[in-house]
């Protein structure tokens, strides 16, 4: 971890010093990619196509799914019955970009519905399994050994550190995504949103709400965490936190 942390307001790191020289991992990545292409293991076009897909995903799709489920009970029933099929209704095809999905995400999505007495939160204690086609890339903190170690044993402490304190009568259910299901939380629709449109509702369904470390509420439209600035080049759009990706139509 960098020493460039700001310990003042706790909201943002200063820009990390840019590393001038190419790093060893960048070198290794270039070497592996070039050799793979030279040997015909995959083509540059394969890499470009997958990159385009990877740059198109983001949590906005999940937000739309939740907002639609809140306003359309029949759609919600389909989400809970077969989430992969329901995703197609909002333009997310889990078979992309290869025709059989990505090699790492599998096509077994389950949406976990919160109730007044049940709150879900997801983790992968073994690596960082995450529903990428619907939520984009996982946040860095989700991949840390710290989150993975602690969430299954001290969930209420971890949630409190995210600012979420739940009463003891609410069951906290941790979903450890350790095999081939992928999970997303369907939070409860908050009070004060009765006449809102789907677009308005989607704005308050942030990524953290769909992981289960935050609850949606009117006025809360972003997940605020300290941000480690890149030390090496970032091309085109960066993945979250800064950019809410609107899926290409």
């Amino acid at each position, binding site marked *: 971890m960098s020493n460039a*942390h700001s310990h003042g307001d*706790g909201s943002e790191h200063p820009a990390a010093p840019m590393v001038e*020289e*190419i*790093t060893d*991992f*960048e*070198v*290794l*990545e*270039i*070497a*592996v990619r*070039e*050799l*793979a292409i030279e*040997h015909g*293991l*995959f083509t540059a076009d*394969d*890499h470009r196509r*997958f*990159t385009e897909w*990877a740059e198109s995903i983001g949590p906005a799709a999940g937000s739309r799914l939740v907002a639609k489920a809140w306003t359309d009970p029949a759609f919600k029933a389909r989400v809970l019955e077969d989430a992969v099929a329901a995703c197609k209704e909002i333009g997310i095809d889990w078979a992309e970009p*290869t025709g059989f999905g990505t*090699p*790492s995400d599998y096509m077994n999505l389950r949406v976990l519905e919160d109730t007044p007495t049940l709150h879900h939160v997801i983790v992968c*204690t*073994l*690596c960082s399994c995450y529903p990428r086609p619907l939520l984009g*890339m996982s*946040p*860095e*903190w989700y*991949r*840390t*050994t*710290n989150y*993975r*170690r*602690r969430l*299954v*044993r001290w969930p209420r*402490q971890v949630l409190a*550190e*995210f600012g979420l304190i739940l009463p003891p009568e609410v069951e906290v259910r941790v979903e*450890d995504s350790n095999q081939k299901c992928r999970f997303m939380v369907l939070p409860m629709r908050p009070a004060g949103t009765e006449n809102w449109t789907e677009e308005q509702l989607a704005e308050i369904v942030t990524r953290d709400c769909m992981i289960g470390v935050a609850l949606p509420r009117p006025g809360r439209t972003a997940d605020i*965490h*300290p*941000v*480690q600035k*890149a*030390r*090496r*080049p*970032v*091309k085109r759009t960066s*993945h979250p*936190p*800064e950019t809410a990706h609107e899926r290409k139509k």
Partner: protein
Amino acid sequence: MSARKDVLKQQDIIGSLQPAIHVPQNWNYEVEPDLYKAYMHPPHDVGGQFDVPVRYEEKEEEQWELDTYVTCEVLGWRGLWNSEERRRRADNDLGYTLYLGIPYYGRWILAAARMLVDKGHISLVELIEKIAEVKARHGKK
């Protein structure tokens, strides 16, 4: 790197990477069953281990990280490996020192390199020479 003082500095760094088993390990004629079990425990299985609160932070995704992710996935798409092989290599075969000590996507790309050599798709010397060439191309010492 070839200067003697650099070699000695490297020795210090490598020494500091030893797993923290604070008992002498010079003659391992036997391993106690509990220690054997700990040795055999896959490093990725961390759920329930003690840790202290930290600031949960985001990170801007760097280009090499996205490229690494895509390279590993395309290798899967084209049938070179499956995700379970990647996770096995990346998260476990590297051992604790590397597992805990390098970036998330550093594990991925090391795993991809190792797999391509292990399965005979590229030779180790070919990879080493490519690494040297890429370093030279980018003016890296």
